[in-house]
């Protein structure tokens, strides 16, 4: 198709036409390009308010989760320490069982046992004497705290009435036993109930044994309470020290206990929040 002369004229002349832009145009272009880059790089940052809101939500959720995890840890820890205590209790209980064994079993070598039942001191002596002999038997039928716990719910209600009576009595004795069996100074309430059984033992061995199993749950409850108190004290006290070493130490301890290590603590120290929350709960 032949081009129209006017089209040709304009096309020829204007195709190579140049109009020099002002110098500012380049600067403007540079600026626009920088803005474009910033917009691209800071794309997410420009959503500031939304991001902040999302951050706050995340923080709340994370805080709640850690708080919940920690509170569940408290009971977990309580159970854990309870089992260690139960071992300690076992030590105390062991003699009783031995006595029972001796009483029930025809293996009892000495006639004094029956007479000794009335006198606690003699029982203790007997127990000490007998322990080496009865040790193998005990091993065959070990006294583990868990079976006791399992029997708890049934007997607990029936013996609840007996407990209050026992409670006040042994306060004097407790410190001594605690010193021997436990490393925790605060176990006292739990230990007390354990000790309670000793005087009863003197009176009726079978009844005492039954009660031992009964008292166990109560011990557990008391211990969980005391342990949670302990833990709260820990939480309350440690942030006050608020040295980095203390924090790190706590995390180490958590790791050692096989609990979740709270890394957030290094960042914004949720322990202070936690301490406030638990402190309020406590009140």
């Amino acid at each position, binding site marked *: 198709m032949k081009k*129209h*002369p*006017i*089209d040709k*004229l*304009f*096309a020829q*002349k*204007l*195709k*190579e*036409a*140049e*109009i*020099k*832009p*002002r110098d500012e*145009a*380049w600067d*403007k*272009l540079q600026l*626009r*390009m920088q803005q*474009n880059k910033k917009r691209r790089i800071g794309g997410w940052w420009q959503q500031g308010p939304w991001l902040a809101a999302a951050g706050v939500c995340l923080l709340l959720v994370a805080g709640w989760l850690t708080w919940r995890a920690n509170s569940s840890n408290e009971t977990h820890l309580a159970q854990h320490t309870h089992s260690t205590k139960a071992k300690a209790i076992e030590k105390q209980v062991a003699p009783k069982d031995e006595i029972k064994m001796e009483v029930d079993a025809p293996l009892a070598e000495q006639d004094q046992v029956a007479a000794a039942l009335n006198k606690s001191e003699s029982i203790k002596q007997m127990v000490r004497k007998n322990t080496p002999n009865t040790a193998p038997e005990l091993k065959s039928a070990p006294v583990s705290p868990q079976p006791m716990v399992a029997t708890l719910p049934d007997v607990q209600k029936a013996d609840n009435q007996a407990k209050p009576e026992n409670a006040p009595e042994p306060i004097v004795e407790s410190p001594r036993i605690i010193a021997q069996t436990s490393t925790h100074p605060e176990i006292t309430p739990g230990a007390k109930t354990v000790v309670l059984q000793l005087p009863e033992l003197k009176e009726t061995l079978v009844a005492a044994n039954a009660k031992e199993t009964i008292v166990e749950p109560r011990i557990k409850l008391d211990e969980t309470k005391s342990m949670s108190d302990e833990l709260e004290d820990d939480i309350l006290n440690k942030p006050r020290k608020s040295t980095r070493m203390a924090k790190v130490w706590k995390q180490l301890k958590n790791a050692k206990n096989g609990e979740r290590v709270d890394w957030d603590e290094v960042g914004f120290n949720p322990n202070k929040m936690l301490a406030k929350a638990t402190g309020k709960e406590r009140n």
Partner: protein
Amino acid sequence: MVKILQLFTSEAQLVKSLQKGDAKAQRHLYEKYSGRLLAVCVRYINDKMEAEDVLIEGFMKIFDRIDQFKGEGSFEGWMRRLMTNEALMYLRTKRHIEVDLDAPEAQHLPNYEWADATLEVDDLMAVIAKLPTGYRTVFNLYAIEGYSHAEIAEQLGITESTSKSQLHRARALLQDMIKEIEDLNQTAEAVKSLKGK
């Protein structure tokens, strides 16, 4: 400048550097083509300042979409198309491209015996600037950019016949105006020669 020019001896090299986002290459491209591309913008948008804004936007697009240039056809042609589209978009958003259907036909028969050698680029630019926007746009696209009527119709959202009639009227008007300019030039030369005598 010489150093920069030496760096980008071939267009392919320049394009490659641009695709990497090389600032020097961008500067080089701007130095080399901004004049020509601004002329394109001014042909569509009479106001030079507005045209410069469009030029800047067009360059942004060129730098942004440099990856889309696959080396088919000339690089300058690709840039011109981008710039043309940018100008059209500007016209579409900022002003309406009025399709002046009722503009008067050129009264006289076309006379192609003008001495086009005397016409300068500036004259032609000035003449085009005097055209109504609709005429100017269609004429620019058809005569200079080389679009078909179908393409123009699609670009501007008009029918092909409208595009054709716009082009005819644009040509006629341009012819008139060129005649005027030539007449003026002739009289000016005559005056000059008279004064010289």
